[in-house]
């Protein structure tokens, strides 16, 4: 795309076609309304990261790198490690991504993925404490979008889960002055207590559609992202987009998400 408006605009004939197909239960790429695009998950793709994964969801491509460091704990949680999730919508992924600090889309993306991990207590933060009140592990989850073709949230959450599942936590040494230093000669795998998976359902022309591609996101009224844990409980939810949902649609979306989450989870965790 050699020129983009301030906000991406979908052409009317394309939107018309999308709505026409959806009313017949079909989509532009031949999928059913509740089908995900082809998904590939590759773990351990970045050697310099302590954990990493690349997820391709159709043409949406995301890399997540996990880095483990040491930090002072937050004052209100002196015995817990720190989790921090950041997302970069780098300009190479889309003509609508500008260089600069994270915009509202990047921040929302990071916070939704963070909520899923935190609320489900996937990472046992109490087991990441080294010296209570002084030194704890800090887990950096960095989400890097490489190509934007819609549904960045589901792809990012899946990649984050896959990356965390192959993350190494290095050991540590405490020197004579009481300083804690990372010891990379020993490590243990990050133990995950839960495996949250995000499922996004869009409201397009009154129909519920799973895993919207970019064109579908531009044609939709709104999207509901529902994060489900390994026991089928909902641990995070986010409605995004300028339109709205009916209460019935929300209930139905929750049921759809439960089923789909199990499918996605098995791709990452086996």
């Amino acid at each position: 795309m050699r020129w983009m408006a301030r906000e991406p605009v979908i052409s009317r004939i394309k939107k018309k076609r999308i709505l026409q197909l959806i009313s017949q239960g079909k989509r532009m790429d031949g999928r059913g309304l509740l089908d995900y695009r082809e998904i590939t998950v590759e773990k351990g793709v970045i050697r310099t990261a302590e954990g990493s994964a690349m997820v391709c969801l159709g043409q949406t491509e995301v890399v997540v790198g996990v880095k483990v460091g040491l930090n002072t704990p937050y004052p209100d949680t002196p015995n817990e490690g720190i989790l921090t999730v950041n997302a970069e919508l780098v300009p190479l992924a889309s003509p609508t991504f500008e260089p600069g600090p994270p915009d509202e889309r990047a921040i929302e993306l990071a916070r939704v993925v963070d909520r899923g991990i935190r609320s489900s207590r996937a990472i046992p933060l109490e087991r990441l404490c080294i010296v209570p009140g002084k030194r704890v592990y800090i887990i950096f989850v960095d989400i890097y979008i490489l190509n934007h073709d819609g549904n960045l949230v589901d792809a990012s959450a899946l990649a984050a889960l896959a990356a965390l599942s192959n993350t190494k936590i290095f050991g540590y040494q405490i020197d004579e002055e009481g300083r804690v230093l990372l010891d990379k000669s020993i490590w243990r795998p990050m133990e995950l207590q839960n495996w949250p998976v995000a499922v996004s359902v869009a409201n397009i022309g009154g129909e519920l559609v799973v895993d919207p591609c970019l064109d579908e996101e531009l044609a939709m009224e709104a999207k509901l992202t529902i994060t489900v844990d390994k026991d089928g409980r909902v641990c995070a939810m986010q409605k995004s987009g300028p339109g709205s949902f009916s209460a019935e649609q929300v209930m139905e979306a929750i049921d759809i998400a439960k089923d789909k989450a199990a499918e996605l989870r098995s791709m990452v965790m086996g």
Partner: protein
Amino acid sequence: MTLYFNRRDLVVPGDLLAEGDYDAGENVHRIDNRFYATRVGLFELKDERKVTVIALNSVYVPKPGDIVIGDVVDVGVGSWAVDIRAPRLAILRAVDALGRPFRPDREELTRFLTVGDTVIAKVKAYDRTRNPLLTLGEPGLGKVTSGLIVRITPSKVPRLIGRKGSMISMLKRETGCQIVIGMNGVVLVRCRDPEDEELLVEAIEKIERESHVEGLTDRVARMIRRRKGLVA
């Protein structure tokens, strides 16, 4: 006079194509009597003299008289801005769209065309220092209300048309559809049956992908017949 490549060889930027008394054609840069490729493409020698590269990756440069297809991306006071996938945004003035003077105090431009509308237009004027100017003032031009759009790299438009129109005639014949090819690489297909539209889009994508492999017209015709045979 030396040629370093054969006809239809794949060349890349920086390749020394020829040396001697030749002329520089498209996508070729001349330094003294040496001729270099500036784009990835197929080597050609036109009329035994013009060292040329038929580009496989290119940028659309508008020419007056070109038919183009694009989307309205902005509405101004007396004109619309249209994305024709060229380096510069194209301008369609109200007078060139309506064929008559426009009264801003009496009329609203958005009633005729608004952001998101697709138009088939003709390039009225263009030089590198300004935005290309479009017009809708001819039969066959105007707002598009139905069909599917498929995009190909602009240098492959001649391939989609074919020698003496052979490729596009074949496509229309085999599918019974309407096809409008914009010189900017944007193609509109319109069929009675939406499934035929999808098949035609696939055929056009195949043409773009395999444009450098011989025997394309037959291959595409066979693909269409096979698919219609299964479907019918």
